[in-house]
C-alpha cells in the first residue's frame, strides 16, 4: 500500500485519534471517583484550616464530621435556600459571567470547636495573575474573625503568593467586620501597614499591592452578602429572646 497516499494518511490519522480518544476517555472514567474524592478531601482540609484545625488527606473526612455540624446555603439577599452546600463550587460560580447575581449560591459551614460555634465562609476573588480564594471563620457574634486561610492560583512567589502564609493570615484573628455603630465595614488589607489598634485593618504585603487589594475586595464583596444573612438571624434571635421573655411573663 502506498504510504504517502491521501487515503493511507487519512486512515492512519483516524485510527490513531480513535485509539487515543478511547484510551483517554476510559482512563478518565475509571479514575473519576478517586479524583472526586481527592477534591472533596482537599476542600474539607481547607474548610477546617479556617478554624485552625490541621487535617491531612487521610483524616479529612473524619475531622470534618467531627467539627462541622451543619452547612447551609444563602442567596444574594441573605435568605437561606435549599441544597447541598458542600457541593457548591464557588470558584466555578465566580468565573461564570453568565450567572445572574440572584442565582448565585453562597454556602456556609457551621463548626463547633471546644464548645464554641463558628461560621466558616468560603470566598473567591481576583489576584494579580489569577483567582485567589479563602475561607474565613467568624465567631458566634458574627462579626469577630476567628481565623482566615487564603490561597491563590498563580500569584508572584515571595510577594502576592505570601497570602497563604501565617504571617499574612494570623493578623486577621480578632479583627471585626462590623464597626461600633453597627455598620458593615469588612476588613481592609492596608498598603503600608494597618494603623495601630485598628480593628478593621490588617497589614498589606509589600510588593503585593494588587493581590492585597484583591483580598480586600474579596472580603468586602463576600462578607457583605453573608452580613445580610447574619443581620437577619441576629434580629430573629432577638425576637426569640423577646418572645421567650413575653412567654415567661405570661407564664408568671
Amino acid at each position: 500500500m502506498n504510504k504517502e497516499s491521501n487515503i493511507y494518511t487519512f486512515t492512519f490519522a483516524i485510527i490513531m485519534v480513535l485509539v487515543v480518544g478511547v484510551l483517554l476517555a476510559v482512563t478518565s472514567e475509571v479514575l473519576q471517583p478517586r479524583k472526586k474524592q481527592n477534591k472533596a478531601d482537599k476542600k474539607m482540609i481547607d474548610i477546617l484550616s479556617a478554624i485552625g484545625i490541621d487535617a491531612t488527606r487521610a483524616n479529612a473526612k473524619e475531622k470534618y464530621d467531627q467539627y462541622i455540624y451543619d452547612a447551609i446555603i444563602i442567596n444574594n439577599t441573605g435568605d437561606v435556600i435549599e441544597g447541598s452546600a458542600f457541593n457548591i463550587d464557588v470558584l466555578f460560580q465566580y468565573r461564570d459571567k453568565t450567572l445572574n447575581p440572584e442565582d448565585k449560591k453562597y454556602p456556609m459551614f457551621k463548626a463547633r470547636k471546644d464548645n464554641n460555634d463558628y461560621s466558616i465562609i468560603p470566598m473567591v476573588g481576583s489576584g494579580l495573575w489569577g483567582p485567589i480564594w479563602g475561607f474565613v471563620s467568624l465567631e458566634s457574634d458574627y462579626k469577630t474573625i476567628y481565623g482566615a486561610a487564603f490561597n491563590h492560583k498563580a500569584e508572584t512567589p515571595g510577594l502576592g503568593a505570601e497570602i497563604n502564609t501565617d504571617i499574612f493570615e494570623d493578623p486577621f484573628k480578632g479583627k471585626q467586620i462590623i464597626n461600633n455603630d453597627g455598620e458593615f465595614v469588612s476588613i481592609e488589607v492596608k498598603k503600608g501597614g494597618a494603623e495601630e489598634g485598628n480593628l478593621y485593618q490588617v497589614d498589606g504585603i509589600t510588593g503585593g499591592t494588587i493581590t492585597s487589594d484583591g483580598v480586600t475586595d474579596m472580603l468586602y464583596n463576600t462578607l457583605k452578602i453573608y452580613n445580610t444573612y447574619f443581620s437577619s438571624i441576629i434580629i430573629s434571635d432577638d425576637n426569640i429572646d423577646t418572645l421567650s421573655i413575653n412567654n415567661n411573663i405570661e407564664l408568671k
Partner: protein
Amino acid sequence: MKNSFFSKQHRKLISDPMGDQNPITIQVLGICSALAITTQLENALVMTMAVIFVMISASMIISILRNKIPNRIRIIVQLIVVAALVALVDQILKAFLPDASEKLSVFIGLIITNCIIMGRLEAFAMGNKVWDSFLDALGNALGYGWILVAVAFVRELFGSGKLMGYEIPGFDYLYDLGYMNNNLMILPPMALIVVGLIIWVQRSRNKELIEEN
C-alpha cells in the same frame, strides 16, 4: 553486524545525554520546566518520573510505528502520542498523587511542549529500532532529570532550609548563629543561575564543549 543489548554503542546512548550531550546544559532544551518546578526536590522528582515515563513510552511507540507513520503527518503523530501520554500521566497524578499534581499544576501539561521529547522522537525514534530508542529516551530523560534534581536540591536546601519538605537537623543551630534562608533561591532567576553554574563546571572540565566564537 548485530549489536548485543549492552554494547558500547548502546551504553553511549544512555551516557552521552547524561554528560556531554546533556539536553539541558549542552543543548539548552527543556529549560522552561527546569526553571519553574525546581523550588522543591519532591516536585523535581515527580516531574522527572513523569518525563521518564512519557519519553520512554513515546519513543518506543514512535519507533514501533516508524515505518507505518505517513511522512506528511509525522510531527502531528508524534505530538498526539506525547499529548496522550501526558494526559494519561496527568490523570494518574490527579488520582494518586493529588498534592504533587496540584503543585506541578500546568507544568505536567507542558511536558507536551518539552522540546527534548519531540526533539528525540523526530531525531532518533523515527529512524531507529525500539531498543535503541528506548535507551536514547532513557538517557535523555535521565539527563534532564538529574539536572532538575540537582537544581532543586540546591534551591530547596538554601531557599527553604529543607529537603523533600523535611527540616534539616543541623539548621536550627545555624539559624541561631544568624544564618537565614535565601529567598532569592526560591525565585525563578536563581534556577537559571544554578543551571548556569552547572554549565560552567561542565565546560571547564571538558574544554571541547566550549563553542568557538
